[in-house]
């Protein structure tokens, strides 16, 4: 606690200074919490946003808006364990708002934009590219629960509450998503001979 002045005539001034210091420490506290939040979750959220809206620049914008909104309502986040689903909810809401705002169809954007060269063999790269295309081919309704499960490691219940669906629906969608992926992988597609 800040040191108090003993001189009584100054006590209103001291009180004011204490208030300021408290306000400042609350502010720095908030900044620290916010920074921890950004550093812990930005990577997964970014990936989730990329797979959701299929464009890196859009995903980054979405993340900016999500975190700005999170900053504004950071005081409402009291449970650290809820932070992840809280952020996901904000991001999904911002994403929906993006569609209200402008009716651009990002589905048309070249999906290769998502691809990145990594330390993989040619074969692995081809396989990964194919898998990514397949993931993007999934309808958003099927893709989204899968992303939540694979990127964030969420359980069926967590996904259900994040997407405001009941557990059965979530399980059905997860099952169908994987089933479709399996089928796509098994189908004789261009450059996918080895998956036959």
């Amino acid at each position, binding site marked *: 606690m800040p040191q108090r002045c003993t001189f009584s005539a100054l006590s209103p001034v001291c009180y004011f200074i204490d208030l300021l210091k408290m306000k400042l420490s609350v502010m720095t506290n908030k900044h620290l919490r*916010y*920074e921890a939040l*950004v*550093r812990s979750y*930005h*990577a997964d959220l*970014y*990936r989730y946003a*990329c*797979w959701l809206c299929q464009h890196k620049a859009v995903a*980054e914008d979405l*993340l*900016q808006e999500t*975190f*700005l909104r999170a*900053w504004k309502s950071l005081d409402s986040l009291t449970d650290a364990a809820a932070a992840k689903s809280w952020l996901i909810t904000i991001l999904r809401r911002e994403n929906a708002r993006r569609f209200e705002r402008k009716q651009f169809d990002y589905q048309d954007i070249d999906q290769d934009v*998502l691809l*990145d060269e*990594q330390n993989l063999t040619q074969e692995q790269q081809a*396989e*990964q590219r194919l*898998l*990514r295309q397949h*993931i993007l081919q999934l309808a958003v309704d099927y893709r989204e629960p*899968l*992303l939540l*499960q*694979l*990127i964030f490691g969420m*359980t*069926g219940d967590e996904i259900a509450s994040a997407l405001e669906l009941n557990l059965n629906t*979530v*399980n*059905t969608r*997860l*099952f169908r998503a*994987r*089933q479709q*992926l*399996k089928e796509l*992988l098994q189908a004789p597609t261009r450059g996918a001979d080895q998956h036959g």
Partner: protein
Amino acid sequence: MDELEFRRRLLADPQARQPEMQQQLQLEPQRQRYQQELLEMEQKLKQSLQLPVPADLADRLLLAQGIASFSERKQQRQRWFSLAAAVLVLGLLAPALYKQLFWSGNLAEHALAHVYHEAAYLVDERTNLPLTEVNQLLADFNAEFTQWPGAVRYARYCDFQGQRSLHLILQTTDGLMTVFVMPPQHGLTGGQQFADQNFHGQSLQLGQHSLVLVTDKQQALQPFAEELQQHIRWQI
């Protein structure tokens, strides 16, 4: 749990985190092989989803917040500043505005308004102020009555459009005569003669001083002005 249901549930969650699914797995090695197959695909899927995240993304996000909250604070400050400035300007302009709106700046109008406003209740027929008392008040204007034939019904300092003036009501043979003795620099404009339906007035310039006379009979003005000049003495 039949095979179809089992596969359904395993496809929904290949890790089979639910205890009953673990049980089901223990029952048949074939099911474990199926899970293994799915987990391999799961691994590939996870790898595919692992897009590289720009290294400076976190810093950019933090910066955006910093800028946003800074400009928010700045806007708040600006709002307070403009409010304070508005109050200040209003405070400074208020007296001038008040003068502009409520003071006509016209001597005649104000004199008449003053008489209308006060005539009704100022005059008490029984009052007859001693001349010494009147002269004490007049001393502020460097003037005094040497003598005065009639009664002085009323004598008091009055605010005459922001100017401290002496308000006199004198009894004459033609009725009551209101006299405003004005300080030298009263800065007001006004005609020599003015009138409305009930009252007639005249402003007199005696040296540096202005006198404003108001009465209900026009013919009383001129003789009164002359009489006043005889009985009032200006110092310097």
